[in-house]
């Protein structure tokens, strides 16, 4: 039987002002990163409810990454500070539940950092792929 090559499924939440623009710049500069990375646009990284991260894992995501403006550069002044704290809490809880730390990440990518965006996604996808499939939180009822 032919074994299908394992590709991780990665959900990336990007803030509209910095990281989403950084991802656009990566595209403009034709910097490759794995197609498994799917970007969801949010106004600010602080819009990402921990519920969304849990939902992604429940539906079978192998990794979730949040990207926002650098500390001090948030379009909304302070949103990314909330993100940093909320996600530190959430990721530590997920770690306790058996979702490895490498599957979750918060990264600051500015609108000028297309290269950083691509490098971050390559690195993150590689680390997640090395861990293999994530089954811990997956809800099989979601898969038909």
């Amino acid at each position, binding site marked *: 039987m032919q074994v299908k090559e394992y590709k991780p*499924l990665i959900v990336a939440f990007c803030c509209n002002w910095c990281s989403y623009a950084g991802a656009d710049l990566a*595209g403009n500069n034709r910097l490759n990163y794995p*197609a498994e990375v799917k970007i969801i646009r949010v106004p600010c990284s*602080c819009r990402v409810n921990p519920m969304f991260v849990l*939902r992604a894992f429940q539906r079978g995501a192998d990794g979730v990454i949040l990207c926002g403006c650098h500390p001090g550069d948030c379009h909304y002044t302070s949103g990314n500070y909330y993100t940093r704290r909320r996600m530190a809490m959430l990721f530590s809880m997920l770690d306790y539940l058996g979702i490895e730390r490498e599957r979750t990440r918060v990264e600051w990518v500015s609108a000028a950092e297309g290269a950083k965006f691509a490098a971050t996604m390559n690195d993150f996808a590689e680390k997640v792929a090395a861990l293999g499939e994530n089954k811990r939180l997956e809800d099989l009822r979601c898969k038909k």
Partner: protein
Amino acid sequence: MQRIGVFVCWCGSNIAGTVDVVAVAEALKSEPGVVFSANYQYMCSQAGQDLIKDAIKEHNLTGIVVCSCSPRMHEATFRKTAAAAGLNPYMVEIANIREQCSWVHKDMPVGTEKAIILGKAAVAKVNLNTPLVPGESPVTKRALVIGGGIAGIQTALDIADAGFEVDIVEKQPTIGGKMAQLDKTFPTLDCAACILTPKMVDVGQHEKIRIFSYSEVEAVKGFVGNFDVTIKKKARYVKEELCTGCGDCVSKCPMKKVPNEFNLGMDNRKAIYIPFAQAVPKVATIDADYCNMLKNGKCGVCAKFCQAGAIDYTQKDELIEEKYGAIVVATGYNPISMDKFDEFAYNQSKDVITSLEFERLTNAAGPTAGKLLRPSDGKHPEKIVFVQCVGSRCDACNEKGKEYCSKICCMYTAKHAMLTRDKYPDTDVTVFYIDVRTPGKNFDEFYRRAVEEFGVHYIKGMVGKVSPEGDKLIVQASDIIANKQIKIDADLVVLAAAIEPDKSARPLATMLTASMDTNDFFTEAHPKLRPVESPTAGVFLSGACQGPKDIPETVSQAGAAASKVIGLLAKDKLTGNPCVAHSNEMMCNGCSSCERVCPYGAITYEDKEFRMPDRTTLVRRIAVVNPAVCQGCGCCTVACPSGAMDLKGFANNQIIAEVDAICK
């Protein structure tokens, strides 16, 4: 159920080169809600937009998904297209299959698969979109300028000349700011007073400008277009409307030993004073800390001699409430305190002065009537040493100074050195510098003239120590180019002190919810593209409150800020961003979690009556979002423990639908 149309753009070969657009359009056809699907070479072209418009009308579409370039590029375009066809513009979603798909993946099947998934996520989202209507709010057609230096003056004049009312709030008794204290200005050596005072007079006489001098902003409420500002007019014990500025009171006042802050304490003024001859408004002010009448009830000389009857010892601080549509911050800068810099002996010797003090010493209206004399003994200094970067460009861990370059010091030091050599050719002038930074129009030429024409000695190296010895000052320094330690004696040492934002800026920023950087400079909305706007809507930045600036730069920024203000005040109504937070009042329990995280103060609470099933009423505290203030970051939605807060356009169920579509 929505009726969704999907429009897949080829973008020439930009998308179609890596993504099978026909397959994408075909695959999305079977998604829930999709009733129409098409692909076209250039959706953003007129023909492409017409295709969308026709489809909306023909198929009665209630929502559309455009699979194309980044929404940052053409979301606005397609929203307009939808609106032109009678569809609510917020029923449009973009699947970014160019920047985030075709351009970053090379393989056609991979790209196509991802494009389909991104399209599905957009369809899932648009299924949950609701038509949004931006709110409107009126605009108070009056601007407030905080700070009456050259930045505030120029901004106020430009706004007033466009026909809008402007109020200037200045904490000193007169407008003019730092520029009024300067002698000459680089690189043209215009006399500062000659170019500033006509502008001050213009401000004073302009029918659209009111000056609140000796006043401070006490509180700011409201939002863009509708600020409610409380201004504290400090008691100056002189009735402004009666005072003619004749100065009789000043000449008769017996209290002579008050340090004159306008001359940086280098001479004395009276307890009742007019800061300088060209002050605007030219009104006397009584310094309550020194006035005998106010302190002990004995004196009253000024009241006796005032023919206008303007003196009023019973005056109290007055609070004035005003409404404004826009606020310009022009709080400016100050040189940092030299107290921490013991090595330069600033506090030990009167002959170690800062550059601003030097400016007063050379100013004809200064303490020495413009003669360059040593503060200690009144002799003419024969050897002057200028030290640059005192407190500027310091190590991050050195708490004494600032990390940034103060920008103006190289040029004013060159100016001081040049003018000294010009007026007193027998004076020996040495400048110690780390780097000479002169990037400005005619700036480097100016500096080179100081060196080449006026024979100023420039030595690359930092001064380590200044020690008073007899009536001389011994300057120990390193000469980096000669690679040696040197020791020279000087009669006067001038320190180019770093500049920092005015102390009033931080509390003001809190009042305005305008953000600041770690150095207390105001942050601009975008460092390149929105340099005179604060991230807080309706708050604009002018001059050195945003960063160190020289006069030409300050004036151009002041004009830019004014043009932004005029653009705002010219509108009768402001259209807001409809993607704002809103609270479900049935779920909200008024806990204040959202209010605490809101960076804009957009959330308030009100007690609302709810009708109970048994026909009684229940009063509950609920959160209310002001849509005109909310910027739509969504921070509150996550903080809300009951899930009452949601963000329009990026609602919880919409984002979850996207997650589900991607993870399917």
